[in-house]
């Protein structure tokens, strides 16, 4: 509505009246038109300025509505994907139950090839059906390929099935802040990726100038925009400076910033990387590193000096524990390099010297300049005996750059310029060095270097592949080599960022990682067969079965027994307190009366060490050798001298020497027998052995081993995986080195020494004049997937191996659970989508109504205003007409 202008108080002119009337009529018509437009468009405001606050709210509401509408579209997309996935999974559980049924059935009728073939056909059909389900596709996107939606997730790779997707999921925003996982990766439905060979060692990467601050402290990093204070006391006063670390990215940034901002008037502040931490030192006085305000940066950098600590000339920081990253150099793993600074008076001529490899061996090396060089062709030489790196220079002529070139050419150490000494970028390294500059002694080296020369042996189903890793510089290069080996293995940094994991994607295949004569795999912690490997994990989880009884001595039954020698001497043997058969033997041999006068009853361990033999050579022979079972005692019966229920055993049978003998029964069991090439039998009992180390120990400490001419060494094989027996026994007439199954124990087979169905294995070859025998690698990893189970089941059915079929059926149960769980998961996600959709719809109604409140017209109000204005206009027109009509001229 037009503004209301006051009416002049004195007189009024005709022109003015007409002008006013026209204005008023126009104002009314404008209002009418506005109201009409409001009614016809339904909008209350047409431009933001019509009602600025409401318009602004409306713009925000419109935006929210548009965003929510996209959420609804996203939601619809997610729903389609999940619905198709749900459909694809319907048949999975049925297929698996079918296979399970026919497999179980075939076990009862294993001899019938027909029945087995039928079951195999079922397995094949199931594999095909599951492949179809696993490769389900919607709109050109594979549903079970993780986030690699354009890659066929499950496919044959030879006789195995490879999972080519990944374990990630695609996500979408189904509401402004609600991130929704749209698909299940194939691994969660069917399985497809093996458990990782967990890096068992902390690779302990070195702290370097390029170490990112975000990667220190195990990935916790330091707070951004922080600061620390450096306080130097020169004995008279303390001066401080605040080091602003905001924007610092690397450890090098921290070092540079501290060194560039020493407290005013204080001595030079140096920061060195020592033992994976920072050391802040001052050239005079003492230094204390503090926090600024309530900051934590100094603590996070490990260089905070607590008030309880008396400051010294150097603040030695703690290990900053940087993460392993893809770009971490392999040469930076497992330790630190020794380094030192070679300072010369003057600028642009200081040099930092760092050992080429890790290790404490390079600590304490003196680096000295010596005359004898010619500027431009300086030479460096390293004397490992005196631990001196000598650089021959032309005094006053050779520059720091020349020295660096010479040291780098020598190779034991690497050299670079010390940036702190640089006054101008263009002059860096151009300063001359001086013969009198002396004496850096390197420090800070430690740990070891990774053996990259040897490489690895990778096996995944097929033939072993020897992987040369000597070309790898970084951790990522190493992963690339593993995945590039073409055996379906992939490496990655573990979750903690401290080591590496290797995993397989090949279902149905056994995979392992072994050494290729070196220590690469072991150092990286990815060897699948180590001393710590648990026997229970051998043979795909079956373990290494040992003889089931007679494993331990029941010492409660070792009470006492009575022996009557053939000369009639009665020996009472007290066995209480005996904890081993050897104790029993000793107790018998030292029993009162034994080995005195003519009495000589010798107790000895049988060759297998599991029973006791009594040899009676007493004189004169007046009766039998008798072992009695005194009433209330159990020992004679337990040790097998007296049959159960009898009171004594009596014998006069003689051995070749004419002695009477009684043999006890086995009270302990053995699992395998090693016959050294000198013929010595080493009986190995693996009872309660849990790890490979236990097996090695049992063999290496077996009775009879390493005594006399016998020397059989058990160790992890240097190439590949397995236990290697190295027989260096000395004898003129060597027999084969033999490993034999004994006493019904299959341990030799389970350990991989003796092939299935055979009872022994022998060797008469080896290196270095020794005989050696190596066990097969029975500790392999495999992919946990439905395809793995089915392929294993198929093999088991072909072999007619009931145990393996049972094993596979158990695995199928697990797979079934997984598939059912995945189906349920998809169902519940669909349900939650429904909930979100309902909420979105409700919100949309509310938002639209709020928007409508802001910008839509209230029709009732608009129309009543329209009517009111209409009347006003009419009245205005009428009165105008009558005013304009009136004139005095009409009356004169």
């Amino acid at each position, binding site marked *: 509505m037009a503004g209301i202008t*006051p009416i*002049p*108080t*004195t*007189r*009024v*002119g*005709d*022109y*003015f009246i*007409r002008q006013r009337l026209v204005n008023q009529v126009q104002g009314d018509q404008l209002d009418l038109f506005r109201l009409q437009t409001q009614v016809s468009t339904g*909008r209350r405001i*047409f*431009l*933001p*300025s019509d009602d*600025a606050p409401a*318009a*602004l709210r*409306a*713009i*925000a509401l419109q*935006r929210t509505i*548009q965003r929510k509408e*996209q959420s609804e*579209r*996203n939601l619809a997309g*997610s729903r389609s*994907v999940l619905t198709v996935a749900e459909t694809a999974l319907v048949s999975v559980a049925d297929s698996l139950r079918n296979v399970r049924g026919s497999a179980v059935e075939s076990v009862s009728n294993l001899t019938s090839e027909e029945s087995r073939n039928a079951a195999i056909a079922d397995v094949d059909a199931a594999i095909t059906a599951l492949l179809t389900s696993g490769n389900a596709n919607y709109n050109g996107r594979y549903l079970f390929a993780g*986030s*690699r*939606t354009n890659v066929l997730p499950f496919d044959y790779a030879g006789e195995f099935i490879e999972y080519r997707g990944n374990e990630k999921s*695609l996500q*979408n*925003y189904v509401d*402004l802040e609600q991130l929704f996982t*749209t698909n299940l990766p194939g691994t969660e439905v069917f399985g497809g990726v093996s458990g990782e060979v967990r890096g068992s060692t902390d690779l302990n990467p070195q702290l370097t100038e*390029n170490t*990112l601050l975000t990667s220190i402290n195990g990935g916790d990093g330091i707070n951004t925009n922080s600061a620390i204070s450096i306080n130097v006391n020169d004995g008279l006063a303390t001066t401080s400076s605040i080091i602003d670390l905001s924007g*610092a*990215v*690397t450890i090098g*940034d921290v070092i*540079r*910033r501290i060194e560039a901002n020493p407290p005013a008037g204080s001595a030079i502040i140096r920061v060195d990387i020592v033992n994976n931490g920072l050391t802040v030192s001052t050239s005079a006085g003492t230094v204390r590193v503090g926090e600024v305000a309530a900051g934590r940066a100094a603590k996070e950098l490990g260089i905070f000096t607590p008030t309880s600590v008396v400051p010294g000339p150097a603040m030695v920081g703690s290990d900053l524990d940087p993460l392993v990253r893809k*770009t971490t150099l392999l040469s930076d793993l497992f330790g630190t390099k020794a380094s030192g600074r070679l300072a010369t008076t003057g600028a642009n001529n200081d040099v930092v010297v760092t050992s080429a490899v890790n290790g404490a061996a390079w600590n304490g090396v003196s680096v000295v300049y010596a005359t004898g060089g010619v500027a431009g062709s300086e030479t460096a030489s390293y004397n490992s005996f005196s631990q001196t790196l000598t650089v021959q220079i032309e005094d006053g002529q050779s520059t720091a750059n020349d020295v660096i070139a010479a040291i780098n050419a020598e190779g034991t150490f690497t050299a670079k310029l010390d*940036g702190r000494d*640089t006054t101008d*970028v263009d002059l*860096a390294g151009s300063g001359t060095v001086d013969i009198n500059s002396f004496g850096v002694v390197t420090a800070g080296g430690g740990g070891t270097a990774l053996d990259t020369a040897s490489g690895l042996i990778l096996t995944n189903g097929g033939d072993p592949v020897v992987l040369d890793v000597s070309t790898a510089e970084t951790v*990522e*290069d190493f992963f*690339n080599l593993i*995945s*590039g080996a073409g055996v379906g293995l992939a490496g990655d940094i573990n979750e903690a960022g401290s080591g590496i994991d290797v995993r397989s994607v090949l279902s149905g295949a056994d995979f392992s990682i072994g050494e290729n004569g070196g220590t690469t795999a072991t150092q990286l912690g990815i060897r699948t067969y180590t001393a710590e490997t648990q026997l229970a994990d051998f043979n795909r989880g079956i373990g290494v079965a040992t003889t089931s009884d007679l494993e331990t001595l029941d010492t409660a039954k070792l009470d006492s027994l009575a022996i009557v020698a053939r000369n009639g001497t009665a020996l009472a043997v007290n066995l209480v307190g005996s904890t081993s058969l050897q104790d029993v033997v000793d107790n018998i041999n030292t029993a009162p009366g034994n080995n005195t006068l003519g009495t000589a009853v010798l107790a000895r361990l049988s060759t297998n060490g599991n029973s006791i033999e009594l040899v009676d050579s007493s004189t004169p022979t007046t009766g039998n050798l008798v072992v009695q079972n005194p009433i209330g005692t159990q020992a004679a019966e337990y040790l097998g001298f007296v049959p159960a229920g009898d009171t004594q055993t009596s014998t006069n049978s003689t051995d070749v020497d004419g002695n009477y003998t009684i043999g006890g029964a086995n009270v302990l069991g053995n699992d395998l027998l090693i016959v050294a090439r000198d013929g010595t039998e080493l009986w190995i009992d693996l009872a309660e052995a849990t790890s490979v180390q236990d097996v090695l120990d049992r063999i290496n400490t077996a009775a009879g081993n390493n005594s006399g001419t016998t020397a059989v060494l058990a160790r992890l094989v240097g190439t590949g995986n397995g236990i290697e027996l190295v027989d260096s026994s000395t004898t003129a007439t060597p027999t084969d080195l033999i490993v034999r199954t004994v006493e019904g124990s299959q341990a030799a087979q389970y350990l991989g020494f003796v092939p299935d169905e055979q009872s022994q294995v022998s060797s008469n070859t080896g290196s270095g004049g020794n005989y050696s025998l190596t066990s097969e690698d029975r500790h392999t990893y495999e992919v946990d997937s439905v395809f793995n189970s089915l392929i294993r089941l198929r093999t088991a059915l072909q072999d007619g191996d009931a145990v393996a079929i049972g094993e596979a059926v158990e695995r199928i149960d697990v797979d079934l659970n997984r598939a059912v769980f995945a189906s349920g998961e998809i169902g519940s996600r669909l349900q939650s989508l429904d909930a979100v959709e309902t909420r979105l719809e409700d919100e949309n109604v509310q938002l639209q109504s709020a928007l409508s409140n802001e*910008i839509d017209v209230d029709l009732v109000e608009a129309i009543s205003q329209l009517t009111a204005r209409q009347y006003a206009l009419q009245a205005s027109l009428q009165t105008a007409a009558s005013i304009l009509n009136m*004139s*005095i*001229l009409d009356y*004169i």
Partner: protein
Amino acid sequence: MSLFGSIHLGANTLRAMQIGLQVTGNNIANANTPGFVRQEVIYSPAPVQKIGNLTLGLGVQVDAIVDKIDKFVLDRLVGARGDRAGAEVHEEAYREIENLLNGLSGETDLSTEFTNFINSIGGVLDAPNDPAARHLVITLGDKLAQSLNSISSRATSIHEEFNDRIIASADEINVLTETIRKLNLQVATVEGSGASDSDAGGLRVERQKAIDRLSEILGITVNEQTSGAVNIAVGGEFLVFEGQRLTVESVLTSEDGLSTATIQFTSTQSPLESRVGELPAMYAARDQIVGDFLDGLDQLAGLFAFEFNKLHTQGQGLVGFDELTSVNSIPDADAALDEAGLAFTPVRGKFDLLVYNRAQNTTKTHEIFIQLDGLDDDTSLNDLTATLDAIDGISATINSGGKLEITSDSNDATFAFDDDTSGVLAALGLNTFFTGSTARDIAVNSELRGLGNEAKFAASGGGLGTPSDSANALVLYKFLDKSLDSAGGLTVPDVYDRLVNTVSQGATVAGAIAEGFRVFENTLDGQQQAVAGVNLDEEAINLITLQRIYQASARFIQTAAELLDVLINL
């Protein structure tokens, strides 16, 4: 006193009444003439005659014909016109910008374009390999960029329009001052330098019209001289002084591709400065309203482009680059990157260059550190180029245009970028989605245009080779919600809202102010017209009165004549 004297007296009266009738007639004739000032005849008794002891009146005489005008109100009107005209210019400028933004349409406004663009990324989230979804992102990005271009160019043309109007104002001022100068001379001549009491009537009306118009354009001070001429001054400088005037001219200067016109005195070349009126309002509308809007729009576009690019450069496309040339160039390749004149300034940080070998399906990550802490050896374009060039499988050079060119050395190798904390990629324009830094020049990077190039939309966060995930698209999708440090913690919609709010609040305020000035001017105009306006009824009454006096005077003459007849017939 004779009868002849009486007849003469009557004749005088008749003449006086005729003059009165003519003035009334003129008033009636101009009853509808805008700006007309009614005139009034000032009658006074004629000088008296002394006859003996008697003093006889000699009838009436016309002293003057004067303009009925309130000079005080007129002076105030001069100021009010300037205020109103200025406020209307502001109002108009805001209104035009508001129309440009079309903020409430919900379909075609900029806010919707922003939202639609970001919404389109939603389509890529669970279909990262779908070319159609990717293509939509690029199309809508293009549409958004074009909307920004178009708004910027339309705002620029408003800017130009104000320039044109300012230039036209100079001519108008010259014409008006010339008119006033000429009329000054005529008025002075007609009014006889104060010798007559009468006003120059129509000449004054004409001059007043020119003054009125001039007062709309400029805040002027009007001083009427005794001669009847007016002197007109602006900010202490006389535009018109009696019969002389100063001419003004417009001059154009150019800045940031925008030309700016100002008006100055031709003789002294000092600027014509005024605080009220259309001219200063046009300056303000052009420089503050349109200019600030353009700045705000550029800031919005620049913020959006750079921050979106910063996120985009963190990701990888479905395919890597075989070759890539930076969008932005650096004239001095030795300058530290934060001092090299880039539109966006990189900071200390690092980025990863991923070199992907297609044949081996392996990726090698190279960390590239950008040293920009001002302590020593800050990274220059030359340093960066050398570092990149040293990478196995990649060559980097600076081309003749000062742009960084990265190429892969073999068919097997492609490259991509990751994890840029320095912003250097976005600043140089490597793997960016948008190019440009203002609303005028923002555009979708040509790398992304063309068939198959939608694959380069960096939706993935998982590197190259392994087919794309949509990790980076998830981040981009949330871009509108991202609080930006470079915008003081605001989000892009916040900045947009602030821009719209500035315009709509400005428009509201300018509208209210203009309305206020209009009412005030109308009030003064009412007051002025109350004095100067013609009222026909009043004039009719005057007419009758004059007529009656005329008739009476005629009768008086007749009576005198009859008396003479009596005398003659004696």
